[in-house]
């Protein structure tokens, strides 16, 4: 789960990481109220989960209530690369002497925690990584040992942070690491981490991705839910426990496993079709899950055909088939359905479909042929 900046800052605050005083506002009046209470000048920041907010005009400095009113009015409702701004974060503006970068994440290849610090903050860090990789200090941390103050100190020194920022930055790194580990985050990132002219270091932005698998031990995450920006199809899918990403095409896709779902999108595109979505019904999906998936796809007006691509391992073919049959009885599926079913109990599944859904769906033996058939049924021309 990706947090909004304001949620990330609230999460940081739990772990003692200093952030600017500020508050959330959903209306112009609320924005003025927050600004009055934290003191001027303030920064009015659009809360959207997409990069490039500043360039799009979603971050503005305001010297007084009149300016807050004007900027808040402009930014609320603004469309930033497809994300409509519904909420603002208003915080006390900071004087900036230097901007840094700090993050912790898991390095899958090294199977260790990876801390990264750079004196080149406030800009796109991936660009820095490309153009000046030496400007990013990296430290692999053994998860059993953790990060101690000495390690944090070495990291800020290696990154070449200004002398007077080092002690404050090292303290923040230790807390940020604790937030990453105890807070069960996949990623914690501060960009920029700033040094003020009077020598204080604090987080001016917050990017936090929480590990959904750890939700069972974090009841406090409940408050972060329900505000995420989802399109209606994604919201419905989430409600039903499905992994769904809306795309722009016309072939609805249902597959088991993220890899196969991506692979299915690849093949559809390669034969000349356009996937309308990515939908992973997960491992061990039963009839109910399959019926839910078809229901979600059915709400997408753009879908002109549906391609169900299942290779059973933990997922059993007969369950998939029962789900398709159940969905056909429960929902008025508009688009024609093509299915490719292989793996565990695939023969049983195919025979259930032949008996109970003949005429409604087409069973095709291979993935590529099925992609072609689905594309043709959608009115496209398959390669």
């Amino acid at each position, binding site marked *: 789960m990706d947090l909004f900046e304001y949620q990330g800052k609230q999460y940081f605050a739990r772990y003692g990481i200093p952030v600017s005083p500020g508050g959330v506002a959903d209306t112009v009046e609320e924005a003025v109220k927050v600004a009055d209470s934290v003191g001027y000048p303030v920064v009015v920041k659009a809360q959207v989960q997409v990069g490039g907010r500043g360039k799009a005009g979603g971050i503005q400095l305001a010297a007084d209530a009149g300016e807050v009113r004007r900027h808040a009015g402009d930014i609320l409702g603004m469309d930033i690369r497809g994300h409509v701004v519904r909420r603002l974060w208003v915080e006390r503006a900071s004087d900036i002497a230097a901007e840094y970068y700090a993050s912790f994440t898991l390095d899958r*290849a090294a199977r260790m925690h990876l801390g990264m610090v750079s004196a080149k903050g406030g800009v796109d860090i991936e660009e820095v990584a490309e153009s000046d990789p030496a400007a990013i200090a990296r430290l692999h941390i*053994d998860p*059993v040992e953790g990060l101690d103050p000495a390690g944090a100190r070495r990291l800020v020194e290696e990154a070449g942070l200004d002398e007077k920022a080092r002690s404050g930055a090292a303290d923040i790194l230790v807390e940020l690491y604790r937030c990453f580990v105890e807070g069960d985050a996949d990623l914690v990132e501060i960009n920029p981490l700033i040094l003020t002219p009077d020598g204080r270091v604090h987080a001016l932005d917050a990017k936090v991705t929480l590990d959904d698998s*750890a939700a069972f031990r974090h009841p406090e995450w409940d408050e972060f839910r329900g505000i995420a920006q989802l399109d209606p199809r994604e919201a419905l899918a989430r409600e039903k426990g499905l992994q769904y990403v809306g795309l722009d095409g016309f072939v609805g896709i249902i597959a*088991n496993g993220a890899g196969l779902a991506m692979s299915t*999108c*690849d093949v559809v595109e390669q034969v000349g079709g356009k996937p309308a979505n990515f939908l992973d019904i997960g491992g061990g999906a039963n009839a109910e899950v399959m019926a839910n998936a078809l229901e979600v796809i059915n709400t997408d007006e753009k879908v002109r055909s549906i391609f169900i691509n299942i290779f059973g391992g933990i997922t059993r073919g007969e369950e998939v088939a029962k789900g398709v049959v159940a969905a056909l009885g429960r929902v008025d599926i508009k688009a024609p359905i093509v299915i490719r079913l292989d*793996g565990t109990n695939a023969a049983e599944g195919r025979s259930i479909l032949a008996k109970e859904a003949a005429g409604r769906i087409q069973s095709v033996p291979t993935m590529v042929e099925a992609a072609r058939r689905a594309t043709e049924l959608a009115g496209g021309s398959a390669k």
Partner: protein
Amino acid sequence: MSIFVDENTKVVIQGLSPTGQGLYHGLRNRAYGTKVVAGTNPRRGGEEIEGIPVFASVAEAVKETGANASFITVPPQGAPGAIEEAAEAGIPFVVCITEFIPAQDEARTYSRLRRDFPRTRLLGPNCPGIISPGKCNVGITAGEIALAGGPVGLVSRSGTVFYQAIYELTQKGIGQTTGVGIGGDPVPGTGFIDCLSAFEADPETRAVLMIGEIGGSEEERAAEFIGKEMSKPVVAYIAGVTAPPGRKMGHAGAIISGSKGTARAKMDALEAAGAKVALNPTQAAEVMAEVVAAL
């Protein structure tokens, strides 16, 4: 030959109960010919389930049956403990298919294994398991899709594309020495390079099919290894060639950000290392057929 498992592998199923996933898949593995010698369950020691003797602990199962591999299907809260129990009992090869283990728990468990139990290899978590056709199948792969006899070794990060790739090879009459599904979680116990190096050392494996996916940099590191250390031909496919940037496609740790981690970046790295890169699993099998024909 095969890697990591063979006809002498004796499997203990951890957390065996009359209704669990472990029994369902364990029986399928046994029906395939895998030596399933024991189960463990602290509340059912001394019982027998479907002819499988149950012990209270892995240590006891090892002592009584000589088990040398374990299969873990228990829920996420219990899985890290189960992995460590197997390692403590001296099990050299642990397969854990459990999905949704918190990443931080995985990281700590992996680190404990690396520090205290270097002789134990963990496969997974959240992986389909391993199959050495005709000899041993530990995990959730439908055994009938595989074909014995080699010459191809297969390693995949994605589970279902793993099945797809095995199946495509089998359809073309190309056998597999071993198929390893390493899983898509943030901290895999066994990675691409572990498998590539084992395949390089295995005399029966003469070519390798590698299936990666978007996100992270493991495929790029594997490419480096292929370029420097592999003499055997490698065919690769990266799932997510057409995935839009900036979206997380499912739980699989498949996050694209910027240029790094994209399918394109991985494909370029693999091609530069001398691997043949295909655009989908079907094409990967076709390319492999050409490679095998030229061996």
